[in-house]
């Protein structure tokens, strides 16, 4: 399974992260997105006329939408990452997969503008990004009230992986995560999953020191 990949792309990282969490082996083909703009080269445009990455290639199958790639990896290697049979859960997974496209546009757009000097209306991108973060925060709080720690269930699904990277990298685009405690807890829960991998700007959790032994009080 070949992934056309860029190390700084949050959308490519979604795929690398999903593969790491589900034990899928990827054959990485690095794309010189910056400064080379290789994603707009004839070779890559022939694979994906939209001129975006990631692109996943396996045999005759070519996937160019990151959410579809996540679903493909999960369906092959770890179906528990897909929606279960409950209608609400299935709908929530779809809801957040679609929502993740907005994050790519607003928080991702702000990040590209602030970091790699790509054009864009930075004020509008940041404002839309903040609106999306508030929506996500509210969604996570509601999930917590239902006793569920992740976006669509009490277990992580493809929806969490679809939303996590652009949210975690919001500060790269000048959007602070300080006001969102539920998002921070959710990020922590995702980063503590077995097999989690990092990317520049998304750090691993520091190893926690062992709990101190507290003697029972005799008083």
């Amino acid at each position, binding site marked *: 399974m070949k992934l056309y990949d860029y190390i700084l792309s949050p959308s490519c990282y979604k795929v690398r992260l999903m593969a790491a969490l589900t034990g899928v082996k990827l054959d990485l083909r690095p794309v010189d997105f910056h400064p080379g703009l290789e994603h707009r080269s004839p070779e890559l445009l022939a694979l994906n006329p939209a001129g975006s990455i990631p692109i996943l290639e396996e045999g005759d199958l070519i996937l160019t939408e990151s959410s579809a790639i996540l679903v493909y990896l999960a369906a092959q290697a770890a179906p528990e990452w897909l929606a279960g049979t409950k209608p609400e859960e299935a709908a929530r997974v779809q809801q957040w997969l679609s929502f993740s496209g907005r994050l790519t546009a607003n928080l991702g757009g702000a990040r590209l503008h*602030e970091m790699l000097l790509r054009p864009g209306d930075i004020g509008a991108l940041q404002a839309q990004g903040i609106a999306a973060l508030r929506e996500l925060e509210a969604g996570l709080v509601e999930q917590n009230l239902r006793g569920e720690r992740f976006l669509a269930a009490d277990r992580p699904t493809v929806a969490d992986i679809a939303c996590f990277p652009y949210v975690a990298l919001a*500060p790269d685009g000048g959007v602070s995560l300080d006001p969102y405690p539920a998002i921070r807890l959710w990020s922590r829960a995702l980063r503590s999953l077995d097999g989690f991998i990092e990317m520049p700007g998304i750090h691993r959790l520091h190893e926690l020191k062992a709990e101190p032994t507290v003697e029972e009080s005799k008083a």
Partner: protein
Amino acid sequence: MSVQAMIDEWYPVGIAAQLDAAGRNTMLMGEPIVVAKDANGQAKVTGGNGRLLPVKMRYGHVWTSLGEPKKDLFPIPEADQPGRRFVDVGVVRVRCSPLRAVENFLDVAHFPFVHTDILGAEPHTEVQNYKVEIREDVDEVWATQVKFYQPQAAKSASGGITTEYMYRVAAPTCTVLYKTCPPRPSEWDVITLFVQPLTEELCDVWPWMALFDDETSMTDLIHFQQTIFLQDRSILENQIPRLLPLDPGMEIPTRADLTSIAYRRWLKRHNYTYGAQLVAQ
């Protein structure tokens, strides 16, 4: 803050290979400038009031100055050495003082914590003693005999090695790093950080490398360096105060900070204070 002392220095403002006739609107020390290719294919840099600025093409980049440079651009002899591969890593904007971007590059102690499993790893956190001097003849800051254990020192390294470094500050916002070259132990790999000061708290960083490595693809070389630098970026954007403090009242350095202290002293001595905080607040 003083623009004056730094105004006659050369600054990077673009990648030579990416020049075009349409031009790139950017900034240098608060002044809007345009970097373009003229009718003869030469680089042309225009200042805010339409005046033509001096131009040099060197080390893969376009260089200019708002003032009248008294010195030529600093030399990097390795740039003319046959067999090296030259890597334009590409611009990255960072919301930090240009001086802080340089200072961070000079620091070794952060490797295990920021570049975990690449340039450092716990428990190998000790910065061994090294030498720092301000070389009066060339007016540069040099740190030598810097040694550090690195799990993956370069794209060309397989497995952990103790890497030797030399650091050099060649201009107020330009620094050159020489490090052990895994495939060719008798040579140094050259990794630079050229910083374009946009304002006192905003800069465009243009990393560039001159390496001996015939195996790794150009894209992999670029991505290795971008990975490292983007790990630094989030740290740089969170440093407080945003300006680099030159007043020793605020901080207590340790021995590992020798290079940083020499850099700050050198900046202060020359009144290179664009991006610096002079009195602790």
